[in-house]
């Protein structure tokens, strides 16, 4: 088991290294930052000087190693616009994003698991049809539209909930529903199909042959097995949410990493963009690593692989 975790840990490190390479490449694709840093009337000599200062005239791999060294120290450079460290900007915005994602995730799981499980034990029942129709719709609604429609209904028309900004629980409701909608639908459908697969297995039949109650058969024997693929799926959804937060935060003016990153892209403030990408990616890698550890508790077979 330890070997498995160590192996996954090293794989995670490799992935983070890969992410740094891609972030570095994107930064380079964005073109010459001297254009942005210098006033338009600056001459070629001034540009050359700045390029030299920034190290842009060195070979690409030296630049990358320098970049790697810097990010290891949390130094992603200065924000062009805010004139502060890009890293501290992103870290400052992180709690808001984490609050939103976790709220959305909890909402998704709390709704999706029961819906998926009940649909699976009563396939083709009215409950199943209703649940799966909603799930299908949930997977088809674009996040941004869902957000706008929720604002239209609950903020504009009914005036029950605020439409923008971060504050108490009231502010959280609409963004969390918006962000969680797709994942709720996806996890519910996936839970249903995993449960259906598992309910069809010989070992669930063995549990029935033993005369165990339906409650134990479904929740102990079937669900523990089905939870393994569902967990994989859920962790992938976490990644989707971290990505989808960009849109949700923009719609609800939620002061998180996503909104900040979009603003930074508009302003061509690339240090902030690369920090946002890198930090979100690393968080996701970290979550995946945690999920790997959970696997070892759910699936005894992993320990010996």
């Amino acid at each position: 088991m330890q070997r498995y975790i160590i192996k996954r840990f090293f794989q995670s490190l490799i992935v983070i290294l890969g992410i740094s390479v891609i972030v570095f490449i994107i930064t380079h694709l964005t073109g010459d930052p001297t254009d942005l840093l210098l006033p338009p009337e600056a001459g070629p000599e001034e540009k050359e000087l700045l390029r030299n200062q920034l190290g842009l005239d060195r070979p690409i791999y030296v630049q990358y190693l320098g970049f790697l060294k810097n990010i290891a120290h949390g130094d992603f450079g200065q924000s062009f616009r805010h004139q502060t460290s890009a890293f501290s900007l992103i870290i400052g915005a992180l709690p808001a994003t984490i609050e939103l994602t976790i709220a959305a995730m909890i909402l998704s799981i709390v709704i999706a698991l029961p819906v998926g499980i009940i649909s699976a034990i009563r396939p083709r029942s009215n409950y199943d049809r209703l649940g799966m129709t909603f799930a299908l719709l949930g997977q088809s609604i674009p996040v941004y539209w869902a957000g706008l429609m929720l604002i239209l209904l609950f903020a504009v028309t009914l005036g029950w909930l605020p439409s923008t900004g971060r504050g108490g629980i009231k502010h959280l409701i609409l963004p969390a529903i918006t962000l969680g909608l797709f994942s709720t639908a996806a996890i519910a459908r996936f839970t249903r199909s995993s449960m259906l697969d598992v309910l069809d297995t010989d070992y669930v039949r063995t549990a029935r042959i033993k005369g165990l109650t339906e409650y134990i058969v479904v929740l102990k024997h079937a669900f523990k097995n089905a939870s393994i693929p569902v967990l994989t799926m859920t962790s992938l959804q976490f990644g989707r949410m971290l990505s989808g937060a960009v849109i949700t935060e923009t719609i609800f003016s939620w002061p998180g990493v996503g909104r900040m990153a979009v603003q930074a892209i508009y302003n061509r403030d690339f240090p902030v963009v690369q920090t946002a990408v890198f930090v979100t990616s690393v968080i996701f890698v970290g979550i995946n690593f945690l999920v790997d550890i959970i696997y070892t508790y759910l699936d005894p077979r992993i320990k010996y692989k």
Partner: protein
Amino acid sequence: MNGNEKVLDVRNLKTHFFTNLGVVKAVDGVSFYLRKGQALGIVGESGSGKSVTSLSILQLVPKPAGRIVEGEIWYGEEDLVKKSQKEMRQYRGKKLFMISQDPMTSLNPVFKIGNQIAEAIRRRQNLTGDDLTEKIIEMLKLVHIREPETRINSYPHQFSGGMKQRAMISMALACQPEILIADEPTTALDVTIQAQILKLMMEIRQHYNTSIILITHDLGVIAKFCDYVLVMYAGKIVERADVKTLFKGNRHPYTRGLINSLPHLGKKQQRLASIKGQPPDLLNLPKGCPFEPRCDYSVERCSCDYPPIEPVDKEHFISCWRWREI
């Protein structure tokens, strides 16, 4: 024979599967009974309906496609077909138990062996703590699993195929069912392991006087283990008789073909007698006797009407228009 009491009486059982492609009559009008302490063999090829028969007895036909459409299964004074899933719980694991085909997949991979056996034990005895652990170890000892004290904490993937099947049998022992159904219990196992498992099952039968339904495609296993045999073909019983009659005095062309097509160890033949043709397509069964296209004795009548089950003598029944001539 151990008494004459019928513990299970299946009458005209029909279990059909309703699929997108049509209705599969997996079991189509099967009647038989099981006596106390009897070892009843059901033999047939794939698709003959032998497994579905056993699942029907336990009311575990895969839903929603499969359904018992007709028939009665009498266990004592009760008709199991009429029981709800909830009511069936009183029978499963107490009166009836089944060991299924593939020991590799019939144990839950994410729970310890001990835990899974404990569930079976607790159907009969409300044990907890050390008493329960002791009982589990006792069960594992009964099925000759070595070092049971450590093995109760193993997971199924740490067991070999034979050991998994032993663990299944220990569950059966814990439940002490009146009827034990074994669906191809040794098919997935090696010959030497098969011999071990069959021996174990014989011990159980002698010790507890359990009635056993053994489902297999292997006539050798039937000859060794069973007292009474049903031969199934395309969802119907074509012949049923006690084991000696079946091997020596069979009257159905299918039974005879099956026995003759086996290579006999120690008696090397030049050619094997084989049954011509292909197994029946269950979605398009012929109108008359389903074996007719492959039968050497078929006459015109065979392709029109299905032959009724007729008694040859007291315990020997057959479904063939021409059994008198064979």
